[in-house]
C-alpha cells in the first residue's frame, strides 16, 4: 500500500462522496438529489499510516445546505473510519486526555476518569448518527448531520446529570468543533449499558406472546407488559421532574397555546393535501385541536425529550433509562429547543404503544380477533403507562388524564405527522396512524 498524505485522502474521498454519501443509512437528505458537496474543515488526527482525518462537509441540495461529519481513513477497504476498531480507540484516548487538535476539542466531563486503550466497535443497529462502543463501558455518538451550537442531547444530559437523574446513561465527555463561528457539538460520550434492551424489543416481545394466545386476554397472558409500562411511566415523569428542577418551568399563556394549536392545524392542512385518506377525519381533528385551548388551568412548559418513543428508552437491570435527547431530527433546531409541554412526550409514548401493538399485523391479511387483541394490549399498556406517569409527575405537570383535551390533541398531532411519514416511506403502515385517528376522534376525550 502506498503512503497516503492526509490531503490526498481528503481529495480522494471528496471525489467519491456524491455516490457514497446518499447510500448511508444516516444521510438525512435522501428525499432529493445532492447538487454539490464541499469540504468545510479537515482536521488530521493521525498523520501516520493508517491516516485518520476528521472532515466536515457541506452538502447542498435543492432548498437546503447542511453540514455532515465524517471520519475518514485510508484503510484498505473502508474510508469510513468509524467502522475501524483500531482507529476509533484514538477518539476515546483524546477525550480522556482532554486534547485539542486544530480547533477540535476533546473533553471529559468534570470529575470523570476514563479508562483508555479500548477498541471501538460500531453498533450494528440502524440509526441516524453513528455510535461506537468502547469495551463494555462507553458509547460515543458521533452526530452525522450537524447543527450549529450546543447539541440539545449534550445540554440536557449535562443538566440531568447535575441534578442526579437516575434514568439516563450518564454523559462522560464530548467533542466540539468550530463551525461557521459557532462552537458546535460533534460527539458525545456516555456510559454504555451492556445489559440494555430497548423498549421496542421489550414491548413487542409482550405483543407476540399475546398474539399467540388467541383466546386469552391481555391481562391473562404471561407476557403481560403492564408492570413494565407503569414503571416506564414513572421513569419518564421523573426525568421531566428532573429537567424542571435543572432548567425551570414556565406557564404557557393563551397566545402560546393559540400558536401551538395553529401549528397543529397547519400541519393537518399540509398533510391532508397529499394524503387523501386523511380527509374524512379532518373535521373531527380540527375540533379536537380547537378543544385543546380549553385548558382548566395554566399549562406548564419546560425542556422535554422531544422525540420520545419506545425506541428511545432502555430497560436495564437498574430500571428504565431515556436516551437520545436530540429532539425530532426532522424539525428545525429552533423548534427543538423551545419550551414545550411534557405532555408531548407522554403523547409520543402513547403513540408508540399503539405502534408496538399493531406492528405484527402490518402487511398481514385482516384478522378481526388479532386486531381486537392488539387494541386490548394497547389500551392496557397505555393506561398503565399513564398511571405510572401520574404517580411520579411533578406538581406543575400533574396527572395527564386531567388534561385530556390537550393530551389528545398532542397525540392526534403526532398521528398526523405519522400519516405523512408512512405515506411517504412505508405505505402499508399507513393504516396504523389512520386507525388510531379514527379511534381517538371517535372515542372523544375526558376532560376533568
Amino acid at each position, binding site marked *: 500500500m502506498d503512503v497516503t498524505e492526509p490531503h490526498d485522502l481528503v481529495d480522494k474521498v471528496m471525489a467519491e462522496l456524491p455516490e457514497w454519501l446518499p447510500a448511508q443509512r444516516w444521510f438525512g437528505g435522501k428525499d432529493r438529489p445532492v447538487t454539490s458537496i464541499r469540504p468545510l474543515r479537515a482536521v488530521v488526527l493521525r498523520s501516520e499510516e493508517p491516516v485518520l482525518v476528521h472532515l466536515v462537509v457541506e452538502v447542498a441540495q435543492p432548498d437546503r445546505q447542511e453540514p455532515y461529519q465524517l471520519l475518514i481513513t485510508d484503510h484498505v477497504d473502508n474510508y469510513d473510519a468509524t467502522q475501524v476498531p483500531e482507529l476509533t480507540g484514538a477518539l476515546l484516548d483524546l477525550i480522556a486526555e482532554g486534547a485539542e487538535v486544530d480547533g477540535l476539542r476533546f473533553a471529559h466531563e468534570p470529575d470523570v476518569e476514563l479508562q483508555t486503550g479500548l*477498541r471501538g*466497535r460500531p453498533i*450494528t*443497529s440502524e440509526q441516524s448518527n453513528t455510535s461506537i462502543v468502547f469495551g*463494555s463501558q462507553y458509547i460515543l455518538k458521533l452526530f452525522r448531520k450537524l447543527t450549529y451550537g450546543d447539541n440539545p442531547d449534550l445540554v440536557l444530559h449535562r443538566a440531568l446529570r447535575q441534578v442526579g437523574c437516575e434514568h439516563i446513561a450518564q454523559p462522560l465527555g464530548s467533542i466540539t468543533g468550530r463551525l461557521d463561528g459557532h462552537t458546535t457539538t460533534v460527539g458525545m460520550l456516555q456510559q454504555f449499558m*451492556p*445489559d*440494555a*434492551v*430497548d423498549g421496542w*424489543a*421489550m414491548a413487542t*416481545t*409482550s405483543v*407476540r*406472546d399475546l398474539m*399467540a394466545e388467541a383466546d386469552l386476554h391481555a*391481562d*391473562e397472558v*404471561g*407476557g*403481560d407488559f*403492564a*408492570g413494565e409500562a*407503569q414503571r416506564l411511566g414513572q421513569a419518564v415523569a421523573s426525568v421531566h421532574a428532573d429537567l424542571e428542577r435543572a432548567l425551570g418551568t414556565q406557564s404557557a399563556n393563551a397566545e402560546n397555546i393559540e400558536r401551538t394549536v395553529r401549528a397543529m392545524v397547519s400541519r393537518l392542512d399540509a398533510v391532508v393535501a397529499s394524503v387523501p385518506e386523511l380527509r374524512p377525519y379532518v373535521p373531527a381533528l380540527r375540533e379536537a385541536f380547537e378543544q385543546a385551548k380549553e385548558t382548566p388551568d395554566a399549562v406548564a412548559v419546560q425542556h422535554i425529550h422531544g422525540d420520545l418513543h419506545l425506541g428511545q428508552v432502555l*430497560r436495564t*437491570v*437498574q430500571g428504565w433509562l431515556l436516551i437520545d435527547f436530540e429532539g425530532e431530527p426532522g424539525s428545525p433546531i429552533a423548534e427543538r429547543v423551545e419550551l414545550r409541554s411534557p405532555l408531548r412526550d407522554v403523547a409520543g409514548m402513547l403513540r408508540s404503544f399503539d405502534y408496538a401493538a399493531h406492528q405484527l399485523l402490518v402487511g398481514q391479511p385482516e384478522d378481526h380477533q388479532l386486531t381486537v387483541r392488539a387494541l386490548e394490549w394497547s389500551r392496557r399498556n397505555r393506561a398503565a403507562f399513564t398511571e405510572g406517569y401520574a404517580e411520579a409527575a411533578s406538581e406543575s405537570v400533574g396527572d395527564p388524564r386531567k388534561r385530556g383535551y390537550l393530551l389528545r390533541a398532542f397525540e392526534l398531532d403526532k398521528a398526523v405527522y405519522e400519516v405523512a411519514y408512512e405515506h411517504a416511506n412505508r405505505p402499508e403502515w399507513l393504516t396504523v396512524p389512520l386507525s388510531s385517528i379514527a379511534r381517538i376522534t371517535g372515542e372523544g376525550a375526558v376532560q376533568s
Partner: protein
Amino acid sequence: MQEEARPDAALVGLENVPHTGEAIGADGLLVEPQAEDFRSAKLVPRERDWFKGAVFYEVLVRAFSDSNGDGTGDLRGLASRLDYLEWLGVDCLWLPPFYASPLRDGGYDISDFRAVLPEFGSVEDFVYLLDEAHRRGIRVITDLVLNHTSDAHPWFQQSRIDPDGPYGDYYVWSDDDQRYADARIIFVDTESSNWTYDPVRGQFYWHRFFSHQPDLNFENPHVQEAMLDTLRFWLDLGIDGFRLDAVPYLFEAEGTNCENLPRTHDFLKRCRKVVDDEYPGRVLLAEANQWPSDVVEYFGNAEVGGDECHMAFHFPLMPRIFMAVRRESRFPISEILAQTPQIPDGCQWGIFLRNHDELTLEMVTDEERDYMYAEYAKDPRMKANIGIRRRLAPLLENDRNQQELFTAMLLSLPGSPVLYYGDEIGMGDKIGMGDNIWLGDRDAVRTPMQWTPDRNAGFSSCDPGRIYLPVIMDPVYGYQALNVEAQLNNQSSLLHWTRRMIEVRKQHHAFAEGDFTDLGGSNPSVLAYRRRWLRPDGHEDVVLCVNNLSRFPQPVELDLSEHHSSRPVELTGGVVFPTVGDLPYLLTLPGHGFYWFQLVEAGDDSEPR
C-alpha cells in the same frame, strides 16, 4: 398439683427407647441420651469445600420408602434407595426433621432433640442410613430448629412446673404480654400475639411461631450450651451438617423487631466455632427468608472467609425464575442477581426451584414486595399459585421443555442446586383434585415417591388403606405411568435427562465455584451468562449458558469479544461450534431451549472437558 407429672409425659411412643427426661438426676437435671450410647457412622473422606459443588436432594423420610410395611416411609426405607440416589448423582441429602415430635408443625415442633420419631425408626436406624450413604459418598444433613421447641419437650414441661429449677429460665417468661411489642407476628392467621399465657406457671411465654412452640431463652447460657450439645450429639454420630431453621429470631431486645440481632449472630459464630474446632468439614446452612443483602450477614465476617453459616438459601431467586419465563423476559432474574452481593470465599448459596413449602413472596424490602406483588397480582395465573404448595411439573403445566429449561438454570446459576424428591421424574401434586379435598394443602407435595407401577407405587407393601397419603392416580401424573422404573427403562425420560445434566455439571467446576457474569444482549427473552473458574493447571474453565425464556424460537447476538478465537463446545454432545470471531456471536435457540458450552481457548490444547 402437676408435681407428679413426669417431664417426659407428653412424649409419645418413646417408652422403650432412650429419650430426654426418662429420669431426673440428683441435681434436678434431665437425663438425656448421649452419643456414646450409640454406634457412630464412618465418615466420608474429609473435603473442606464439598458443599460448594454438591447437588443436594431434599427428601421427606415419610414419603420416600417404607421398609416395614406400616404405610409410612422410614429411615431404613430411605437407606434401601440409596443406590438410586447415587446413580442420579446426588451428593447430599437434606432431610426435614425426623425427631420426636407431636407433628403439629410438620416435625418442626421438636419434642426431643435426641430421639427419632418412632414411625421413622430409631437413632440406630439413622446411623445405619448415615453409614450406607457415606459408603456411597453421599452426605446427609438435616433440619435443626434452634429457636424453639415443642411445648411437649421435657424442658418446657419442667420449665412450667418448676420456675426455680434448672429449666425454669429455659424459655422466655413474663408476667405480662407487653414486652417486645415491635416484633411482628409471623403467623397472623393463627396467632394473635407473640405471648401466650400458661396457666400452670401463671406467666406468659414468648413464641415467634405457633403458641405450641415456645421460644428458647438464648440469654440463658445453659440454653446456649444445651443447644451446642444438641449439635454435638448428631455430629458425633456422623451427620454432615444442619440446615438451621428460623435463625433470625434467637434473641429478643426491647425496641427492636427482634430479628437479625447482633447477639443472634454471636451465637451462630459459636455454633460455627464448634464445627470448625471439633467437626471440620461439616456444614451449617441458614434458613433466613430474607433479602440477599440481609442474608449475607449470616455468612459472617468476609475477611476470614465467613465465620457463621457456610451456606444460605437464596429465596427471591426462585419466584423470579418463574416470573421471567412467564414474562419471557430475563430482567426478573438479571435484576435479582445484580442485587445479590458477593459472599465470603468459604460460602455458597443454596438455590432451588421447589421445596416442601409454598411459593412465597415473603421478601423483605418493601420495594421488592411491591414489585413482585404488582407483577403477580396482575396475573391471575401466577396469583393463584401464591401461598399454595405445588410441584414443578404441574406449575409448568407438565411441559417437558420448560421442566428442562428450569432444571438447566437450577444447575447452572450460581449456588448449589437443591432438588426436591420426585421432581426428577416430573411427579405431580394433589391440588385441585375434587376427590382429595380432605388432603390438606401442605400435603399436596408430600405424596409417596412413585417407584413402580405396582401397588402403592412400590413405596410400601402395606394395605393401600393404611398408606400415610394416597399415591397419585390421575391419568397424567398417576404412578401407573409415571414412576422411576418406567423412566429408568426409557433413555429419553426426564429422569435420564436430569441425571445426564447433573453429570455434565460435575465435569465443570465452573458451575460450582466459577464467577458469574450476566452477558446481557439485545434480546430480552434470552438470558445468557458466563461462569468462569481458574483451574489448578492455570487454564480457565469457562462455561457459557444461554437460555431462551420464550416459547418462540429466538436469535441472540452475544458479545464474546473477551473470548475472541475460542471454540464453543456444546457440553451434552461435544459438538464444536463456530469459533468466536470479530462479530457478535450469533446463536439461535428453539422455544424454551438452552445451551451449555465450554469456551475452549485457542491455545488450550487440553481436551475439552
